[in-house]
């Protein structure tokens, strides 16, 4: 049998940003904590996997389908904002600048990681363009995100859509995830046609 502590350290160190040192520290923290706390953590882990899934329309994370963004009738049908990951939506929401709908690509083009147009949610995106006038390409300002935006812009413009890109005053090569809401709000307001 594998040593339970080694197993926990092993599982924790599979998480992004957690190295063996941090994993060991976390595991010892759990070991010292009351059983109730450890159980709550274990249950929370199971619960997100059992109760949450991707919205069948926009691919954001949700407990009900369609998600709260897709169900919201107050939003502007003509505006669609494309992001790479579900967690990119929240920072954009916080800016209160954007009142349209979202589409999560579930990644960005990266030949080196084997991610092509078929590995992102491109097909579903192309199927939900009816009534849309402008697509905001809010992929990350790194090399993969830029290439993805340029790739989508060509496809969408051929269908007569206006395509825009955030006016990144945000650090180039950075992530939407790490950009503060004021900066992000400004980049949304100052978005430019590509």
């Amino acid at each position, binding site marked *: 049998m594998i040593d339970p502590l080694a197993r926990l350290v092993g599982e924790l160190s599979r998480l992004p940003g957690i190295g063996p040192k941090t994993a060991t520290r976390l595991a010892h923290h759990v070991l010292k904590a009351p059983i109730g706390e450890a159980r709550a953590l274990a249950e929370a882990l199971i619960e997100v996997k059992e109760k949450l899934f991707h919205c069948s329309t926009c691919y954001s994370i949700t407990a009900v389908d369609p998600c709260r963004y897709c169900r919201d009738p107050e939003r502007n049908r003509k505006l669609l904002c494309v992001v790479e990951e579900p967690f990119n939506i929240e920072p954009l929401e916080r800016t209160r600048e954007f009142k349209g709908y979202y589409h999560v690509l579930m990644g960005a083009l990266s030949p080196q990681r084997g991610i*092509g147009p078929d590995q992102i949610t491109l097909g579903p995106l192309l199927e939900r363009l009816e009534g849309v006038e402008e697509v905001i390409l809010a992929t990350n300002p790194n090399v993969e995100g*830029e290439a993805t935006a340029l790739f989508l812009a*060509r496809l969408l413009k051929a269908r007569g859509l206006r395509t825009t890109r955030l006016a990144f005053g945000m650090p180039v090569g950075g992530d939407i995830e790490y950009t503060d809401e004021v900066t992000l709000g400004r980049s949304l307001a100052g978005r430019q046609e590509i």
Partner: protein
Amino acid sequence: MEAIYVLATTRSFRTAQLADCRRHGKDGFWLTGEIAAPRRASLQLSWSRGGRKRGVNGKATSLAEHLAVLPVVVWTAADADLWTGAPALRRRQMDRGALGLRTSALESISRYRQALGQKRQLLQQRVSKERLVAWNGVLAAAAATVIAARADYVQRLRVTLAAALETSGLNLPPIDLEYRPSPSVDTQDSSQLVGAIEEEMARAGTQELRRRLVLLGPHRDDLVVQWQGRPLRKVASAGERKALGMLTAAAHGQVLKGSGSSPIYLLDDADAELAKPTLKAVWRAFDGISQLFASSNRPEVWEGLNLDRRWLLSDGKLSPR
């Protein structure tokens, strides 16, 4: 000298692996340096199996900020072939120059490398020409900045190298530096640069897909030196080429100085196997610079040169001479 270089640039001029820089039998190393002028600052760099850690004044900073603190001009035996060796040497020289002028060039250089790696991978798959377009767009944007920065550097180097040649008094014919960007575009017209590069890349698409190679872009740039219209590699003697290599280091330093930085010079194996009178002439081009460290295993070559201090390295120990 390697320690200063590693501290200043976070890389070694001798090896690609910082692991090779640690003392025998040790797990890592730690470097720190105090810079007195033009601005007071301290630099830190450590390496262990966990990776390298940078610091400026004890705080973590971006690589570009780190590089700006202590500009260095380095010359090693490997640079002796600068003008006649592989083009990669000259591209490295141009990037050192571009970074020396503006550390922000680092951003474009690394973006270009990343996009290039992605396009190379894409060409290995059987894709349509359409699929290259987006990557060409990213590549062209980064390439335009890299090409403009290299062109700017070469223009300045042309002037300072001519001056260094003249100062040396060496009896060499006037040289001509020509930057050959890939694709071949007009570097003066900066507003059209991205579009022009992208257009050329699109034109090369079919060929690239067939050969599965990225045929255009600054990774194929070259810098050509000619003597009276003839390529240097055909007309210059080995000694002349080496002398010119060291003069280039001096000229490179003058370019950086001209843009307001005061670099520190590191010349490893600095005699370059040159005859004493030639070395003395080359040395004149280094006159009046702020700080220079040089090493040689032919101590007699230093005689007659204007030096502040000399040390002898023997059995791993430095002793003043």
